C-alpha cells in the first residue's frame, strides 16, 4: 500500500518503515545532529593540539599569529557569515514555496564558498613564498624561536581540514540546488535542503572558532 499518494509528495520520500512524515523528518534531523557531533569532535582533536602547544610555546604562537594575513582572515570570516545567511534564506524561501529564489540563494552561497577558497589560496601561496611552512619545511626568517614550526603545522592542518569541509559543503549545496530546481522541495517537504544547510552552518561555526585562535591571539 504505497502511501506517498496522499499529501502530494514526490515519489520515494516517505520510507515504508516510518509511520508518518513528521517522524521521518525528526529522525533525519536527529541523524544529522549526530553526524555534526562527530564533525565537532573531529575538529576537537586539532583544537586539543592547539591548546597543548599554545600552552607550551606561548611566545612562538603569539609571534607567528602576528605574521598571518589578518585582513584576509577577517574578509574570509565575513564571507562565511554572509554565506550562512544566504543558506538560511534559501531554506526560508523553500519553506514558503519560492523554489526559484531558494535556488538563487544557494548559487550565491556556492559563489561565496568559492571566494573563501580563493582567499585561502592567496594566503597559502604567501606562506609558500615566505617559507613559513609546517614541520621540517619551516625556514621562516622573521620568527626563529622554537615552537613556530608547531604553530604552522597546526595552522595548515586546521585550515586545510576546514577547506576540505568547505569543498564537501559546496558539493552538498550543489545537489540541494539541483533538487530545488527540479521542484523536490516545497513547504510540505524541505528536510533535504535543511540538512545541507545545517552542514554549511557547522562549517561556518568551525571557522568562527578558527579565526580568532589563529589570526588574533
Amino acid at each position, binding site marked *: 500500500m504505497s502511501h506517498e499518494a496522499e499529501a502530494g509528495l514526490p515519489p520515494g520520500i516517505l520510507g515504508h518503515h516510518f509511520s508518518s512524515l513528521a517522524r521521518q523528518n525528526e529522525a533525519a534531523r536527529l541523524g544529522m545532529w549526530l553526524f555534526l557531533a562527530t564533525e565537532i569532535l573531529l575538529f576537537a582533536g586539532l583544537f586539543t593540539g592547539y591548546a597543548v602547544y599554545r600552552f607550551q610555546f606561548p*611566545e612562538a604562537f603569539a609571534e607567528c599569529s602576528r605574521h598571518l594575513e589578518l585582513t584576509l582572515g577577517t574578509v574570509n570570516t565575513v564571507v562565511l557569515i554572509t554565506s550562512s545567511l544566504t543558506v538560511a534564506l534559501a531554506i526560508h524561501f523553500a519553506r514558503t514555496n519560492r523554489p526559484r529564489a531558494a535556488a538563487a540563494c544557494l548559487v550565491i552561497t556556492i559563489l561565496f564558498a568559492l571566494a573563501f577558497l580563493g582567499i585561502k589560496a592567496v594566503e597559502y601561496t604567501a606562506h609558500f613564498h615566505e617559507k613559513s611552512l609546517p614541520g621540517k619545511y619551516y625556514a621562516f626568517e622573521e620568527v*626563529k*624561536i*622554537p615552537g613556530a614550526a608547531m604553530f604552522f603545522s597546526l595552522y595548515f592542518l586546521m585550515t586545510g581540514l576546514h577547506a576540505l569541509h568547505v569543498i564537501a559543503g559546496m558539493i552538498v549545496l550543489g545537489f540541494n540546488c539541483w533538487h530545488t530546481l527540479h521542484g523536490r522541495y516545497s513547504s510540505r517537504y524541505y528536510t533535504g535542503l535543511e540538512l545541507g544547510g545545517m552542514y554549511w552552518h557547522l562549517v561556518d561555526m568551525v571557522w568562527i572558532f578558527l579565526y580568532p585562535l589563529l589570526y588574533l591571539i
Partner: protein
Amino acid sequence: MNELLRRLLFLPEQASTFARDVDNLHYFVILTTFVMSTAVGLTAIFFFIRYRRRSETQTTPHIEPKAWMEALFVGVPLIIFTAWFFLGYREFVRQYTPPIDSMDVYVMGKKWMWKFAYPDGPNSINVLRVPAGQNVRLLMTSRDVIHSFYVPEFRVKMDVLPGRYTQLWFNATTPGRYQIFCAEYCGAGHSIMRGEVIVLKPQEYEDWYSSQKRGLADRQDGQPTALDFAPPLGNLVDQGKRVAADQGCLKCHTTDGTRHIGPTWLDLYGRREKLSDGSVVVVDEAYMTESMMEPAAKIVEGFQPVMPSFQGKMTAPETAAVVEFIKSLQSDAVRTGPSEGPAYAPIRGR
C-alpha cells in the same frame, strides 16, 4: 607470609625500599579479588542447583530489588575500590617524588641500548652501578623513540621520552645484579635492549667510582661507539668546559665572578636571579637549559638580551655537559655533598 605469597604469585625479589610496600598492597588487592569472586561464584552455583528448571512452562515470580540491596551493590565495591585507590595513590606519589638528597645519574635511551653518565664521573653503556642504601635519581631522556626504564626487582618503571626529561628514583637495598628491561615497544631490538643494574656495597662503589674518575679508560665498562653519548675521555665537567670554550660562551660569561656582557657563572647554580621583569627565579638545570635554547625568555636585570639561541647548535650531551660545568663552578671549590638534582617542583604544579 610475605615470602610465601611472593613466591606463589611469581613476584621477583624485593630489592628496593618500594618493593615491600607495593607487594603488601598487591597481596591486599589479590585477596579482596579472590574473596569477592568466590562469593559471587558460590552464590551463582548455589542458585543453579537450588533453582533448576523443573518444567518447561514453569512460572517465576516478578522480583524487584529493594533499595537497600541496590545500595549494597553500589556501596561495597565503592568502598573497596576507593580504599585500594587511596592506598595506591599515596605510594604512587612517594614513588614519583625524588627526595632532595638523592644522587643523580643521567640516562640516555637510544635504539636498543642504555647509556649512563654520572655527573662528574665516568659514563658507561648498559651497566649502571649504584651504591646500596643510597637514594638514586635517574634523569632520563631518549635520542629517538619512546623507551621505558624498567627494573622488576625494584618495582620501578618510567617511560623515556625524546625531547624531554623524565625522572625516576629508587633506593636499592640488597647488593646484586638486576636486569633492566625496555618496557615500551621501540622496534626490532626492543626485546634485547636489556641493561644491568649492579648494586655495590657503598665502599666497593667508592673504590669503583674513584678508579673511574682517575680516567682509567681500560677499566671503563663497554667500548663507547662513535655516536657515543659523551666524548670518550674525561668526565662531564671537563667536556662542559671544552664545549663552553668552543661555542664561545666564555667570551661573554666569566668563571671567576667578574661582571661581563653576560652574568658570571661563578656560584651561578642555585643563586636567586632577579629578572628584568622584576620576578625572581632560582637557577637550576631547567633555567640554564632554557636560557641556552631561548635566551630571550628570561633576561637577568641589568643585562642586555644579546645572547644568540643555541637551539640546534648543541646536541643533548653537550648541553648537559655545559650545565654540569656551570654547576661545578662554586666558590667553595671543593664540593662535598652529592650533586643536587634539578629543583624538585612541589607536586601541586609548577
